[in-house]
């Protein structure tokens, strides 16, 4: 078992918990999708796995085991060590996570260097191949650009290139394709699935796109009001939903010939 989350409860500061009773597991090469209500705690859950909750956010109850280790017992230094090569995250808001006054190339080089890719030629080759993988045209221009000079979808793809560069064992992807047009989305989804199949990357993806969840996921967790409402094999959740909330969600997906 690569990741095992049990009875997780998460709170910000002294407020009441915003997430409760969440349990799931993830094996190497598996894909789990978390879907559900805006504000139900999806981002909070995946950030807690990397121990990067902002604003006094903390695990209030339950456990998170990664590679057999209790991550709550690990030191912050150990967390930092694991972030990158073992666990990497694509943020919901990649633009806001970047340093606005440093070029993409500089930020990418620094990130790789911290994790041991120090040879400049090797780093350069890796950066350009990753930018090409996420279908960014003209990688040399991208490396020279500052975040504000890129479109929303280009910034998101830069974030994906960072996260996938070190071939992490666990990829945490928070709305990785929500800023992407549908063709680029299809290409990125395929690249993520290739990583799951060829190098056994486990993927935890948060998405509002139920079509993407249905395509990618082995299992789906549906969240509402900070609690899980449904968890099971993707086919069951999508084609045989057990709760009113999941049914309502599926009915609201815009589609060809859809009403509203």
């Amino acid at each position, binding site marked *: 078992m690569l990741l095992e989350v049990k009875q997780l409860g998460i709170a910000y500061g002294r407020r009441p918990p915003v997430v409760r009773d969440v349990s799931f597991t993830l094996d190497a090469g598996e894909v789990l999708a978390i879907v559900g209500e805006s504000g139900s705690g999806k981002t909070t859950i995946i950030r807690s796995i990397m121990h990067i909750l902002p*604003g006094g956010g903390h695990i209030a109850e339950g456990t998170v085991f990664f590679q057999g280790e209790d991550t709550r017992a690990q030191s912050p230094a150990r967390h930092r060590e694991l972030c990158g090569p073992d666990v990497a995250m694509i943020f919901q808001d990649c633009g806001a996570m970047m340093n606005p006054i440093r070029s993409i190339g500089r930020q990418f080089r620094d990130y790789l260097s911290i994790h041991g890719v120090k040879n400049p030629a090797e780093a350069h080759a890796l950066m350009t191949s990753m930018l090409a993988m996420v279908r960014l045209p003209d990688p040399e221009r991208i490396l020279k650009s500052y975040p504000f000079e890129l479109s*929303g979808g280009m910034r998101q793809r830069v974030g994906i290139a960072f996260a996938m560069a070190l071939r992490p064992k666990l990829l945490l992807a928070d709305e990785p394709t929500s800023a992407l047009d549908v063709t680029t989305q299809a290409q990125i989804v395929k690249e993520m699935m290739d990583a799951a199949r060829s190098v056994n990357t486990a993927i935890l993806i948060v998405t*509002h796109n*139920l079509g993407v969840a249905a*395509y990618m996921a082995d299992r789906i967790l549906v969240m509402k009001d900070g609690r899980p409402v449904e968890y099971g094999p993707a086919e069951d959740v999508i084609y045989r939903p057990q709760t009113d909330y999941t049914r309502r*969600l599926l009915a*609201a997906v815009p589609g060809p010939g859809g009403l509203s």
Partner: protein
Amino acid sequence: MNEEILRMEHITKRFPLGGGRTLTAVDDITFSVRRGETLGIVGESGSGKSTLARILTRLEVPTAGRILFRGEDVTALSGEALRQHRRSVQMVFQDPSTALDPKLRVRDILCEPLLNFGLIRSRDVPDKARELLRLVDLPEDFAGRYPHHMSGGQRQRVAIARALALEPELIILDEATSALDVSVQAHIIALLRTLQQEKHLAYLFICHDLYLADQFCDRILVMKQGREVETIRGLREAKSPYAQKLIASVFSVEEGKNKILPPELFQ
């Protein structure tokens, strides 16, 4: 009633890339929008959609072309006239966390523009903030929060409420529902429709979800590398191979894992 509210004529925008190179982000785009109408813009990432939106709100100046708003040339407005223009044309930005001032609480984010234009008094702020939060399906007690203490979709709804607050005549929605689950998204779309019927609002709806654009928009402008490919009244009218490729790339719940992606995406 159905008079033209906006006309973009031959708009071009180039950015210098250094080393004498330039990038043409928007290339000779012309379109118009009538009162009460929704024009969608779809197209690949980097095709110039947001740049076009920023030109329209005058956050960028076009390299060439003319913007007519209510028949008046606003391409070179400045000072008080520009301020008034920005009141009539509101924008919901693609990136809500960078668009909301992190130092302000939600109630001030929502009400400051109203105070600046003298539309409400300070003592009206709490009531007005609650009213706007209810409109976008957020709890009233969010009025006292800071944007970074909210989820992505909650921030996006604050940005939508702020744009609606000034009762503009034209609203640009740049991926404005991309962080919302489909059920909340349906609520927001219904709200936008109601306001459109009541107030004859015009919308420019930039969106990656082709079927959502299809349902919500009267016409859809399809863009590729800064240029117009075609303008259609619905996806069914799409003729260009480019639009067909976009449509074929959509993941659907019905197809699930059986989805076959267009092979040309991987060449």
